């Protein structure tokens, strides 16, 4: 698939990772054009519906990123996010959707370089995985 341009959604927490994205921006780091940022207040507000519907709407990969454990702006939201993700990954398996298409990472406001690394790595991973089976399946 030489011409495959994945469609990737990044849900970023307002307080840490969105700020890291700003830092990556002001540091003029290179980021892939396939990656769309959507700002949310906290990683803990990401419910199963938002993730699965985003896949069913045609995303090839979803990155959720928030504050490091212990650093959540709202105290402990990221711990809840982590627990929900453990379940979500299992649900994805039953849907024949590779769990690697969903990733939860912690990136603090100070980690602009790390943000760029995480986004570039994840985008490469999705490029290798190819289009989401939801997009290509005739079953759906």
């Amino acid at each position: 698939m030489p011409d495959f341009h994945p469609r990737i959604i990044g849900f970023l927490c307002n307080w840490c990772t969105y700020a890291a994205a700003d830092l990556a921006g002001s540091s003029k780091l290179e980021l892939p054009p396939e990656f769309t940022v959507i700002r949310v207040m906290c990683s803990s507000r990401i419910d199963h519906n938002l993730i699965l519907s985003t896949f069913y709407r045609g995303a090839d990969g979803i990155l959720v990123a928030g504050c490091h454990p212990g650093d959540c702006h709202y105290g402990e939201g990221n711990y809840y996010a982590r627990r929900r993700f453990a379940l979500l990954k299992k649900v994805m398996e039953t849907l024949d959707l590779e769990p690697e298409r969903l990733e939860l990472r912690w990136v603090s406001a100070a980690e602009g370089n790390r943000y760029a690394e995480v986004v570039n790595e994840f985008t490469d991973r999705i490029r290798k995985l190819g289009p989401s089976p939801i997009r290509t399946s005739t079953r759906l």
Partner: protein
Amino acid sequence: MSETGTGKTEMTARVGVYLCECGPNIAGKIDLDKVMADILSESDRYRNVELVIRRYGFLCSGPGKQYLEDEIKENGLTHLVVAACSPRDHDSTFMGVCARTDLNPYLYRIVNIREQCSWVITDPEEATERAATYIRGSISRVLRQSSLFEKPLEINPDAVVIGGGAAGMEAALALSSDLRRVFLVEKSASLGGGCGITMPQEKAVIEDPNVDIYLETQMSSVIGFLGNFEIGLKSADGKDEEITAGAIILAIGSDYSDPQESGRISFSESDEVHILAEAERTLEAAGDLKLRDGTMPETIAVVHCVGREEQGYCSGVCCSSSLKLAAAIRRLSPETAVTSVYRDLCLPGADGENVLRMARESGVELIRTKGTSLSGMELDLEKMDGTSEKRSFDMIIPAAAIVPAADTVSLAEMLRIPLDEHGFFKEAHRMTDPAGTTTEGVFIAGTAHGPMSVMSSMRFARACAGQVLTRLVPGERIVPEVKVTEILEAYCTGCGNCLDVCVYGAIYADTDRGISVVNEAVCRGCGNCFASCPSGALRTRHFTNEQIFREVDEALR
């Protein structure tokens, strides 16, 4: 529907889309004219929407803001999209522009085409395409946004201080100096706390007409939020009282670890073993340290770092206190031999070395060991050269570690604030909000926050008072967050999941109606409850799934 004057003005949304050039920062990479043309070319995608799309040099500049304000008014915009920089830079700037017009600030949206397009996407064509995608997502989203209205609340500028030690008294005095009424609540029968010396604040606070002192009293309940707390007090004789205040300062102090906890130290009740704080207090009150039989001890050992390994942290203040005490004993009773047994000396700060010099000059014997154990009155010293020595003393003073006060856990639960890994109250943020907590209006001062010197306790007390004075200004009102969660009662089954996950205690159960209810003044809008709701009964305003899906759909189109 791009024509005006169709007679359907009520049906038609007029969305203004303004692209900021940000000098060369945006316009130097992104072909803004192409973005505008692309979006306009498919404006018939939006039903009953009229698009006004323009570009401008610097929208955040004075003339830029005026331009935007005029555009909103002249075009009668119902919605506004500003494609510019990060919302972290100028979201509030443009919300402020909206506020000067009839346009509700929550019907506006900023799109970040600088940090997320022009600065990070190398290829200008790709950056241009991305910018158009982001802007389309925001046009689509802004049409799903709702007006939100801020509801300013009256505030109570008074404060409750829990704990009448050094930090609590200092905070009370600082607040009183601004003529705030302070309720100073102390669990024991006297003020002073655990700092070991009589602070001058004690007399001042007793004489202060603005400070109401409640001795032998504890906080038994609390409801409310910043500016409006109702606090239940219970006194030792069983009397209940309710007071109201705008803020709560926790200055409950700390305890000392049990020296015998480690197993390396054992002694009995009858042994002359007294922890450092106790010895400091006796010396300050009596002027000397006597044995129980009334005679003066000939030899005293002060043992540093007792409990440090067990607690897993250095209390940071006990080396200095231990050496000061040792020197004071030498000064007051020169015939007593004093030995300080330490492993590592922790004497930070500009004055640290002076304390050591003072101890040396007063004739305190300093012995460095790899480890020390105590059995009865005999110390077993493991010397640095590998040998060991047993020495008996008439009195042993272990410097026990500073540990959280017993009430820390129950107060933390009552106020819904987290504890740190060692069990002290956790601050809202180590660096940016060290005196605040995750519960707005609740602040921490002194060793309730972790081991610290009396001097640092004073600083924290002043910081807390400063927060109260600036956050709660008499006559001013506060504006609670409006992007909060609401409950759609018809869908709520009253399962209580949301109550369990809310760290702010913003949701309570209405058992009569069998549903959960949000206290909007306490909610901060994180949305954790939303994700925990199995029946879709919760909606986080301004960040609903419906709104977010508009962004998703445009990105995946």
